[in-house]
């Protein structure tokens, strides 16, 4: 540990520090609304430190943190890729906290704890985006999962406890599976550092058998299964709908956006750095292609039958994990003349677009369902008259989730399916488009209920200022990047350069 290492870790350290500060502030203030303000303003510190680090990067050079175990091991890097995710995660966390400002009054005495747990989980996710070593990845994953399990069980009713317990048990199982895969990979290559794994594999692969041997194949499959749980892809999705429905709604939003982003960050890092050899990447891209097709089809078909909007959005995130995995499947080694970074940059672009859209949808759902005390889609009837602004935002974000212009959902779908076509995965692009059409049914049903049904009650549904702010920011982002996505695409493309060079 040197002073320079602390500088590299400063966004994560300040994030954890902010969480501790919130716990202390919670003890001394009696007006709990101060906590929201402290949390949101405090998030400017990790954001500012990340920006400083971004401008401190000289060209492609990654800034590394080394652990000295006799031989030096690189465990943590700061590069554009990790900083991109840090921006995304800090932004998503700020919006989740803004959106939960009204919801937390349900927790009576535990406002500070709720925000602190969210911030601790975020610091784990930020670490996850920067780690380049298997053991550090595992530790960061646990740092992410444990606060989320507590958050899922925060409501103290039977639904919420079930969600917390389910998340805890299934994340423990998936961690075990992931660790088993890591052990096998370590046994095969003798190192836990991703870059060294790639070098070792370069010497071991003979070009004949898939993955250079069944042992490595088994290890890679286990790692895919372990990460599959984290991003809720089929066939590892069974925890998602129950946890999404039972958790407090802000936690559901946090899970579906931040947790998923961190999962994809670590998958991209592991597969693009450790298993980048051409013979390997063709094989794992085939695995991801099949998982993508199955995930989106399953998620969309099951979402059709849901009556609870949180559960519906839960299945919708499974479908979106499928669309995102299209970008993982689109590796450049499938075609000789493909654009090397189109796949991973597609994942980053889609993730940020999806984050903005989904947060808009969730903020509107939180604002409405908190006032009417119901999560059922039918109870949103006539909402266009009771809360015209919130209904408008929810409708707009539904349109973005389908992928209709002029929204960011449309742009990111074009980009990621374009990546599939460029890498000879036309069938996957077609599957994705057919699925988008299927998804229109259940997304538009929400719009139909809000606009065409008679309201159950005539009382208008209002919302507080922080809530309005969250809704407006996400809505503006959805519209802005839907019309002019170039800055976001350029940012995503420059971020993934480190993965393919």
């Amino acid at each position, binding site marked *: *540990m040197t002073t320079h290492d602390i500088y590299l870790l400063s966004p994560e350290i300040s994030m954890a520090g902010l969480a*501790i500060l919130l*716990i*202390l502030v*919670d*003890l001394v203030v009696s007006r709990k609304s101060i906590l929201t303000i402290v949390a949101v303003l405090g998030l400017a510190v990790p954001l500012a430190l990340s920006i400083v680090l971004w401008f401190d990067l000289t060209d492609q050079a990654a800034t590394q943190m080394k652990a000295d175990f006799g031989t030096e091991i690189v465990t943590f890097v700061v590069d554009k890729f990790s900083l991109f995710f840090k921006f995304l995660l800090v932004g998503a966390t700020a919006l989740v906290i803004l959106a939960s400002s009204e919801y937390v009054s349900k927790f009576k*005495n535990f406002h500070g*704890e709720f925000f602190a747990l969210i911030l601790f989980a975020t610091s784990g996710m930020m670490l996850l985006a920067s780690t380049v070593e298997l053991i550090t990845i595992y530790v960061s994953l646990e740092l992410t999962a444990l606060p989320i399990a507590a958050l899922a069980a925060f409501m103290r009713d039977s639904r919420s406890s079930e969600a917390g317990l389910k998340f805890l048990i299934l994340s423990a199982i998936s961690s075990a599976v992931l660790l088993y895969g890591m052990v096998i990979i370590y046994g095969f290559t003798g190192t836990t550092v991703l870059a060294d794994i790639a070098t070792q594999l370069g010497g071991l692969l003979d070009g004949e058998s898939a993955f250079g041997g069944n042992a490595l194949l088994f290890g890679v499959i286990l790692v895919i299964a372990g990460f599959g749980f984290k991003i809720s892809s089929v066939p590892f999705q069974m925890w998602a709908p129950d946890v999404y429905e039972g958790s407090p709604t802000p936690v559901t939003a946090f899970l579906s956006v931040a947790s998923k982003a961190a999962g994809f960050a670590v998958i991209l890092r592991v597969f693009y750095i450790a298993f980048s050899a051409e013979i390997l990447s063709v094989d794992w891209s085939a695995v991801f292609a099949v998982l993508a097709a199955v995930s989106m089809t399953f998620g969309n078909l099951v979402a059709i039958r849901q009556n609870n909007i949180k559960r519906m959005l839960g299945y919708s995130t499974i479908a979106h994990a499928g669309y995102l995995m299209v970008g993982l499947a689109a590796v450049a080694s499938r075609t000789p003349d493909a654009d090397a970074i189109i796949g991973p940059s597609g994942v980053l672009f889609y993730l940020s677009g999806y984050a903005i859209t989904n947060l808009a949808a969730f903020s509107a759902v939180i604002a409405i369902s908190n006032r009417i005390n119901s999560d059922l889609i039918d109870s949103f009837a006539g909402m266009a008259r009771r809360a015209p602004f919130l209904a408008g935002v929810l409708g707009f974000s539904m349109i973005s989730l389908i992928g209709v212009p002029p929204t960011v959902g449309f742009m990111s779908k074009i980009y990621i399916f374009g990546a599939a076509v460029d890498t000879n995965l036309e069938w996957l692009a077609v599957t994705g488009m057919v699925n988008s059409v299927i998804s229109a049914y259940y997304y538009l049903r929400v719009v139909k209920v809000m606009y065409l049904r008679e309201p159950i009650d005539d009382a208008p549904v209002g919302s507080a200022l922080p809530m309005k702010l969250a809704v407006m920011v996400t809505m503006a982002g959805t519209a802005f990047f839907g019309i002019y996505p170039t800055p976001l695409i350029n940012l995503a493309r420059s971020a993934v350069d480190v993965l393919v060079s």
Partner: protein
Amino acid sequence: MLDDYFRQYALLAIFAAFAVAVPTGMLLMSWMLSIMKIRPQKPSLIKQAIYECGFETLSGRWSQFNFRFYAFALIFVVFDVEVVFLFPWAASFGVMSATFGAFVLLEMVVFVGILVVGWLYAWRKGALEWS
């Protein structure tokens, strides 16, 4: 190299053999002594009672505990585990501070500081109150 490796299995085998031989030998000896009528055999109620493992159970074992013990146990475990981390730190303090300097002390201050904040929170939120 390989011999060294297998020698460790031999040690394990010797250890296992002893582990089996000692209790079996004791039982065998006791049995032999009773056959040879050297050991008297006069069983009584007190002799046949359970010993070495504490008292006989007095009531049903499915008794209920006060749920508050749970919170206390959690707080206890946190500080118990803290000590587990403090010992190796204290033992290697001299060696580590030679290479890393003041960071070693600072790290433990941060670690204990975080736990103190947790304790403060538990205290102020009333987790230590019995009623």
